[in-house]
């Protein structure tokens, strides 16, 4: 059974089409939902939560139709929104316990579980403070705690690192990565920060202007770039690089670490690079396949329309 499934889903806001005939089925795991502002991520999240009805099409989460079983879907999903979604006047532990009760937990169990989850996320000392006294980072962790309190099989996270400083962001991503590795649990991370997606998720759904550009394993996106390598040399390699250029090899200038990116034409191989380095008495200390990072692959896919 796929984690979620969309069949010819279209959604319009008046004359504006937010999602256009989207059909996909995504298996369980850590899935990244990627796209710029206006790509349709928010609309897709709302549809998966059963909060809006798609104009056309069918959406299912864990086999449940979101149109007819929205409450059941939300009972099996833990949602962490990007902004707001707080209830001022409540203490941290009360807020999380309330989230548990709204998810169907009995009161005592939700309270006990709220304490556990807040301790796990490092809010043990702040759990009796009022929400208005929480910092931005603490609020994000609090919302994550509210999403986790009923231990749902699916976590739906919308820009979880929004507003966090670098340390907070790294810590949050560490937690999410660990949560994604739990057995029988899945995570859908919606973000426009490709680095976040790359660090947490194995699968990505790339949206652009309401259309799914590409779906698949992130590793698979990166491996699409052939004949490109990272070259590291010891000593003065200018003569070597000039020679390689004269043979038709594209060379980008070395970065601060002394690593140059080279692209070999079809008729040449790495053996030819090593042969030239011997002739020029230059020691090659590294020649590795240069996989694109996810950001490069994303930009390439958007410009090429998904290829």
């Amino acid at each position: 059974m796929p984690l979620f499934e969309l069949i010819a889903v279209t959604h319009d806001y008046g004359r504006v089409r937010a999602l256009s005939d989207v059909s996909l089925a995504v298996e369980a795991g850590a899935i990244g939902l990627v796209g710029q502002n206006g790509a349709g991520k928010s609309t897709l999240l709302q549809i998966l939560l059963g909060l809006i009805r798609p104009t056309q099409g069918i959406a299912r989460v864990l086999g449940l139709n979101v149109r007819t079983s929205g409450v059941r879907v939300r009972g099996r999903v833990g949602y962490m929104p990007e902004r707001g979604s707080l209830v001022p006047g409540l203490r941290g532990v009360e807020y999380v316990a309330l989230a548990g009760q709204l998810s169907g937990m009995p009161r005592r169990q939700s309270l006990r579980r709220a304490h556990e989850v807040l301790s796990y996320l490092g809010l043990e000392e702040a759990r009796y403070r009022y929400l208005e006294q929480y910092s931005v980072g603490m609020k994000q962790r609090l919302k994550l705690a509210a999403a986790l309190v009923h231990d749902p099989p699916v976590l739906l996270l919308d820009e979880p690192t929004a507003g966090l400083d670098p340390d907070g962001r790294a810590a949050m991503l560490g937690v999410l990565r660990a949560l994604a590795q739990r057995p029988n649990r899945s995570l859908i991370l919606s973000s426009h920060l490709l680095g976040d997606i790359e660090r947490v998720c194995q699968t990505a759904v790339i949206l652009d202007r309401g259309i799914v550009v590409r779906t698949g394993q992130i590793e698979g996106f990166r491996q699409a770039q052939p004949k490109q390598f990272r070259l590291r040399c010891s000593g003065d390699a200018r003569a070597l690089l000039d020679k390689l250029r004269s043979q038709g090899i594209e060379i980008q200038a070395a970065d601060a670490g002394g690593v140059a990116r080279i692209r070999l034409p079809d008729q040449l191989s790495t053996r030819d690079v090593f042969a030239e380095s011997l002739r020029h008495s230059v020691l090659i200390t590294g020649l590795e396949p240069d996989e694109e990072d996810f950001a490069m692959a994303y930009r390439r896919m958007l410009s090429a329309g998904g290829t």
Partner: protein
Amino acid sequence: MEPLDSGYRDWSGRLRPAWWACWPIAWTGVLLVLRRKLFWLLLGLALLDFLFFFATIYLKAQVSVQNPAVAAFVNQVLSSVTGAGKTYREFMFAQGTVTMLVLAFAGELLVGGDYDQGGLTFYLSRAVGRRHYVIGKLLAIALLVNMTTAIPALILFVEYGLLTNSLSYFRENWRIVLGILGYGAVMAVSLSLLLFALASWLHKNVPLVMSWACIFVLLPAVGEILRHTYDDRRWRLLMFWRDIRLLGSWCFDALSDNDVPLLTGAVWVVLAVWVVCILAIIPRVRAVRVVA
């Protein structure tokens, strides 16, 4: 924040149906109101009124036993406090006036804030439907109303009966309980629907209080002026609080002859207000956006 090692524990248990969530929604609303000091002041006024009635009933019972000669004088002075239905009606009407003040300022806390600060997203992204959210919020407002009206009235009823010489008071006046519950229900439903509808559109305290004042102060004044101008008592139907009181009088079987012709009109006005409020609430609850 430490990443997960062995600190995270799974949870497995039976989840309750969504209707169970109405109570935590309601109780959270009441808790938010009771945490604000302003409401302690207003609820303190209601408590004073309740204590006055409580003490009066006790005083009359004691005096009638210890000094029957003085009892007649006391009964004359405190003639408004008897064991009849009218007493409880008047008590609930006076308490309801204080409650309206409480609700005017509580609207933002109970409902309006959910729209401004994302509370609506919090509630509706859980395993509850829109109807559970609405009923939970209406229940919160109804609890606040009944905390100051019906529940103290029931306490006074029990006190009065216990301070008589026998339990015959309860047997002979059991309909007063129905009156208290009926009047309480009409007040609770009317005020909760009205407050929810207004707060879901206006959100903030100032416009809420102003619109509340228009309905319960300005409109009655207009109704009274029109009644005098056209010499037609039906203009009093514009006084919504009075229409609720008419229904309450009917519940207590204490409707005066003058008010009998207005009863049907009052029923229609109250029902119309309920329908308009429900129609106003529906689009506001559908307006949730999970992501801003």
